[in-house]
């Protein structure tokens, strides 16, 4: 439960909205209960007065107040319900924004090496569902529970005023048990099932994907049936646990309704005793049990919400884990850079956590203005080395370098305009600068012919561009950046030899005076260099 705290803090940053939303829900609930209770009171009153009138006894009844109240509550229930739904959905959407922004900020502060493990479509889709679990926390859980407690309290107060303290306390006690059964009880009985659900489902997904990827091999080996049977069992386990949780929710709901109904029966029974000694009138006697029956609707949503709480806590746990702050892992002793050196690595070890080191005792000194090429076949650890220079990968040893800009081996473009993608490299660049750099990577013509020019939308992960085009946009973005040290990992992926040669030549001019460290699988994939080193994995 402690895992929810940071997210609850975030939600309660909007106390005003939550309060207004809560009041609207309360008004809806009270209107519903009051409509029935007042109607019950009214009918009993009229029945009694009707009997007197029929018997010829002069009796009078005020029809306007109850009649008006009934009409008012009928309308107010509808109006408040509508307002409540509109207002609270607005709140939920606001909370969604708050949570996403906060999560993004936290993730961006979190340890980079940790995030390396967390990538891929599966993690991202899980992140989405985890966030979704949190942003409905207020509307599904917090508000209904708080209001159920408040309405219960109000009804108990009503009972003590209309009936007596003893009845009120007993009714309160029964309702309290009903409330606990519908909330905490459900949570405790489904917590483990719900928390496991997401992990089970992910494990199942991995297994299904593996099954499909190996379908040809499994078919050849005559094992698809066996393996599928195993998958079916896994899937069945997930669904049957879910069914178990659903069943428990159902019984808890039934149990809490049972108690609510019993409290109404008890109130009626106790009321008769008071009625027969003349302590309460007939209409009042009817009002309270009917009001109590109305509580059922107030409690109805709670068990479902609490059944999801276990999963919500698990979601919060995962998000908190993803956001773990950087625990100073890198024991890099910073060294002072000599004036004419752009990058200095002394005795560094490059390794991924849990793996054998890729390089040990690695030494490298790059002079300012130097063009260094690093060549190594795929798997030689060249990208890890580049990551280390860019401090994406913690290194052990002495490492120092100037302000740098880094073109990663993987092309990362955002679903945004071309302009927005390029401006990441240099936020203050003018349109002229952007066109100039596009000219350099031979994309100016391509985008000049687009109707939106610089505002051309680059679709999902840049998928409106070919691989070579996307690579050149990423390269252009790096070239825009003013940093004195440029690290390029396979800058020309997806480009043919001629284009590569032309761009490489222009880059020589543009990067005049800067230090360039470029890495590639072969010499022809490098831009101009003064010195080349070869990596042996």
């Amino acid at each position: 439960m402690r895992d929810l705290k940071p997210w609850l803090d975030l939600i309660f940053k909007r106390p005003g909205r939550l309060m207004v939303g809560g009041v609207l829900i309360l008004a809806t609930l009270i209107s519903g209960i009051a409509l029935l209770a007042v109607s019950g009171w009214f009918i009993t009153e009229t029945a009694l007065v009707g009997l007197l009138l029929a018997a010829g006894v002069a009796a009078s009844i005020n029809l306007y107040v109850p009649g008006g109240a009934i009409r008012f509550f009928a309308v107010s229930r509808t109006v408040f319900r509508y307002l409540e739904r509109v207002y609270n959905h607005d709140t939920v959407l606001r909370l969604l924004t708050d949570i996403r922004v906060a999560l993004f900020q936290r993730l961006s502060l979190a340890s980079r090496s940790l995030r390396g493990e967390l990538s891929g479509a599966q993690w991202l889709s899980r992140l989405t569902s985890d966030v979704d679990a949190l942003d409905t926390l207020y509307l599904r859980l917090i508000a209904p529970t708080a209001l159920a407690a408040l309405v219960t309290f109000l009804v108990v107060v009503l009972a003590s005023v209309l009936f007596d303290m003893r009845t009120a306390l007993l009714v309160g006690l029964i309702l309290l048990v009903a409330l606990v059964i519908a909330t905490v009880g459900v949570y405790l009985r489904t917590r483990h099932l719900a928390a496991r659900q997401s992990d089970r489902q992910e494990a199942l997904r991995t297994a299904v994907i593996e099954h499909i990827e190996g379908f040809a091999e499994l078919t050849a080996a005559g094992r698809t049936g066996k393996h599928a049977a195993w998958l079916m069992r896994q899937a069945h386990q997930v669904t049957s646990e879910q069914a178990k949780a659903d069943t428990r929710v159902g019984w808890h709901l039934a149990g809490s309704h049972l108690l609510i109904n019993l409290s109404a029966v008890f109130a009626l029974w106790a009321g008769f005793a008071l009625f027969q000694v003349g302590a309460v009138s007939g209409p009042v006697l009817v009002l309270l049990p009917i009001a109590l029956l109305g509580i059922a609707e107030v409690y109805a949503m709670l068990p479902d919400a609490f059944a999801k709480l276990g999963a919500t806590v698990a979601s919060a746990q995962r998000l908190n884990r993803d956001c773990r702050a950087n625990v100073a892992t890198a024991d890099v002793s910073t060294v002072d850079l000599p004036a004419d050196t752009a990058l200095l690595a002394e005795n560094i070890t490059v390794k991924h956590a849990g793996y054998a080191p890729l390089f040990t005792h690695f030494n490298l000194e790059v002079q300012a203005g130097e063009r260094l090429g690093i060549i190594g076949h795929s798997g030689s650890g060249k990208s890890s080395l580049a990551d280390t220079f860019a401090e994406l990968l913690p290194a052990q040893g002495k490492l120092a370098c100037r302000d740098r800009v880094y073109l990663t081996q993987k092309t990362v473009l955002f679903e945004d305009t071309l302009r927005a993608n390029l401006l990441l490299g240099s936020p203050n660049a003018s349109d002229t600068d952007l066109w100039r750099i596009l000219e350099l990577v031979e994309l100016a013509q391509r985008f000049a012919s687009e109707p939106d020019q610089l505002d051309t939308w680059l679709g999902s992960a840049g998928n409106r561009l070919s691989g070579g085009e996307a690579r050149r946009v990423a390269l252009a973005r790096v070239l825009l950046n003013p940093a004195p040290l440029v690290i390029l990992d396979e800058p020309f992926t997806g480009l043919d030899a001629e284009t590569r040669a032309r761009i490489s030549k222009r880059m020589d001019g543009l990067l005049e005076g800067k230090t360039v460290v470029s890495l590639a699988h072969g010499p022809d994939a490098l831009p101009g260099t003064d010195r080349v080193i070869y990596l042996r994995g």
Partner: protein
Amino acid sequence: MAEPRADGDGDTTSATNQKAVRQWLLELARGNRLWIRSTVAAGTVAGIATIVQMFLLARIIHLGVIDEVPVAELTPLFLGLILAIVIRAIGQGFQARLAARCSEQVRRDARRRIHKHWQATGPVELGQSSAGTLAREWIDHVEALHGYFARFLPQMSLAIIVPLLILVLVFWLDWLAGIFLLLSAPLIPLFMALVGMGAEKLNQQHFETISRLSGQFLDKVRGLTTLQLFGQTAGAAELIRKRSDHYRRITMKTLRVAFLSSAVLEFFASVAIAVIAIYIGFGLLGYITYGPADQLTLFSGLLILLLAPEFFQPLRILSQHYHDRAAAMGAGAEILERLNLPVDSHRPSELAGKVSARDVIELDSVSKAFRADHEVLLDLSLVIHKGDVIALTGPSGGGKSTLLHLLAGFMVPEKGRIQLFGELPGSFRFGWLGQKGFLVQGTWADNLRLTTPDASDVAIATALRNVGLGPLLDSRKDGIYSAVSEEGQGLSGGQARRLSLARIFVADYDLILLDEPTAGLDSDSEVFVLEALRKLAVAGKTLIFSTHHHALLTLANRVLLVSGGEVRDA
């Protein structure tokens, strides 16, 4: 943000589609009729118990207040009341339990059907869709059927049965009050449709917004490292906030309208209760002289009032579950689309005609076309002897892979006959190595025992060493019992393919088919794969592979050129 999409693709196609989906859902329901009926039965019991509860409640109040019967004499009625309440709770509980079981069965059923379809489709066709998509269909889309079968479908029946029972009772008590309820009844389908449309729109709108927002958000998270490298995280956070807020405003505009339709249902229920309460009150006072009003008693009046909300309650619940229907329809449409994809149905189940010798692979005038006008293989006849090492070469698209797929039984020829060692393709176990290696999460041993469950530890270790994974194995603490991918880092493409090759080693198949076994491998892996294939060839296995690779061609004792629908010795 996802690129702006055009809304809807033709209403006519989606209408027929919807019908098919509804039919498919009904078919699933029919298979689990018993569960659905029991769920409805339990709900009906709860509904009847509720009516009895209200009946006794009204009776007790009438006797106590009007006839001033002492409490002690009311005890049997009170006990009956408690009994009704308990039965109601038991009915409710069983309804939930049976509904959960029902949906469990339905989902299992749906998964089985999808898997059957996968098997009928075969690995080649299945490979046209991404594993992620197929997994989503099998897991998430089937899960999306849950609410429909557990909640919506039983509630559809209950929303008719329970109100009908109440209506009959109210008519018996006071036909005028019954008419008030009945009047709202023909309107109910009408506003249910309204609510339905609203709910559907709401659902769609909500879904679109959520997916766009999360797309936008995930895009930024995905590129977080890049944003950090450029020092732009703060700007990105601000962008997420702005866009989210923008979507909120758009969504709220539609929600304001969509919520109106559900407010209509709420309004009807409230007004009906108010009208009935006031009618009964005036009737009891004797102000209403026509109709049955003068027969009203506190008992009948109160009972009608207590039943009025119960009359609307099943409908309100149904409208709450409406999104379950929308979700199931959406998921069902995608599943059905998959199930409706054609499969090779004319798979021969037994050997037709003459049976060829047990030591040859024989193709007899085999033709295979993907489209009517595009024959990949034409009238192909070929004999391959046991123990041969056959290299298939030729231009890409020439039919090398098709020939391998036919031999593997992954595809069925349009014409002709294929027999391998006197048996049908796919009817016995053989080794297959595709262009992508395949591994499951687990240990090295798990991975090899996947296809050869009874392999010994020694055999597994030997097989892994045979494909050059020995050094990697030695670097792991628990040898073959250490996890293949540790710390979230998997094997390289070449290593994965070698792992697959190790499976073939450990299984000891007579026939091994390989599709471009060295394509795209780094030089280390290439050497190991070549060496491994050589060992298999020496061991007398029949190897058939497609390749352009020179070293592999020299390994073969027969090279076949596959080109333009023909196969000839090169």
